[in-house]
């Protein structure tokens, strides 16, 4: 399971509190992009966009890699952790549901047995 520390949560929370940064995440969800692409898309200076990406990077929401003169941004490792956490929650929900379903089924079995006895008698 994912371990969240208070500091990383603060960072995530701060990172997501800005509409542009949320837009950048959404954009990167569709395709990787360079900082220049992002700056253009969000009508922003390169310096401004670098700052936003920096905040997202610190929060682990975005990863960047510099190849030549271009810095490419992708969604960060945090997304993978979230995916794992989601499957975990899903599993937890279905395990809990099925335990209650066991109880319902046991009751049905019990009733059927009782009815069977009645019919035979």
């Amino acid at each position: 399971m994912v371990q969240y520390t208070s500091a990383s949560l603060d960072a995530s929370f701060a990172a997501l509190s800005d509409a542009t940064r949320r837009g950048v995440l959404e954009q990167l969800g569709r395709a990787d992009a360079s900082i220049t692409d992002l700056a253009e898309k969000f009508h922003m200076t390169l310096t401004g966009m670098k700052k936003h990406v920096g905040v997202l990077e610190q929060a682990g929401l975005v990863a960047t890699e510099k190849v030549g003169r271009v810095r490419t941004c992708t969604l960060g490792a945090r997304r993978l952790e979230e995916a794992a956490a989601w499957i975990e929650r899903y599993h937890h929900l279905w395990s809990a549901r099925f335990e209650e379903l066991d109880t319902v089924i046991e009751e049905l079995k019990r009733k059927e047995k009782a009815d069977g006895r009645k019919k035979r008698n």
Partner: protein
Amino acid sequence: MVEKREIESTPTKNRTTVERTSERELVVTRTFNAPARLVFEAWTRPELLKQWWVPKSMGMSLLSLDADVRTGGRYRLVFRHEDSTMEFFGKYLEVTPHSRLVWTNEESGDNASVTTVTFEETDGKTLLVMRELYPSKEALDAAGTGAADATVETFAQLDELLVTMGARS
């Protein structure tokens, strides 16, 4: 003490598995110690469905459940989890007694997934396989991690975590 409880309860409980089998599909499996007709009954009689679909142990409560369980019939259920109310609805595409159930999950609009449940009986036990097929990889990702609407979902998750952490400290 905790270990002991686990050992005692393990023999009666069957294991639930969840697996992402492809980019678009999640599969859940579980065996039940009863014939398929009883397991099927518990999935298709609304008054029985109500007893287990919204597990109390998860802090959820059922507000309403309407299900017209037949091919072409619709269902709608509403439940409460902490402070939010969640609504799920769709249509049964196939209801084949004791062996197969198929329905749509339409609450997420364009990302509607289709759930197929099969019941397979062997020696009085029933293997249940539930497949959730999403229209695309993106739709499945969105359902789980909210890649499409990272903002809303992640915010809600963070909120939850923050509340939990606040309660602990």
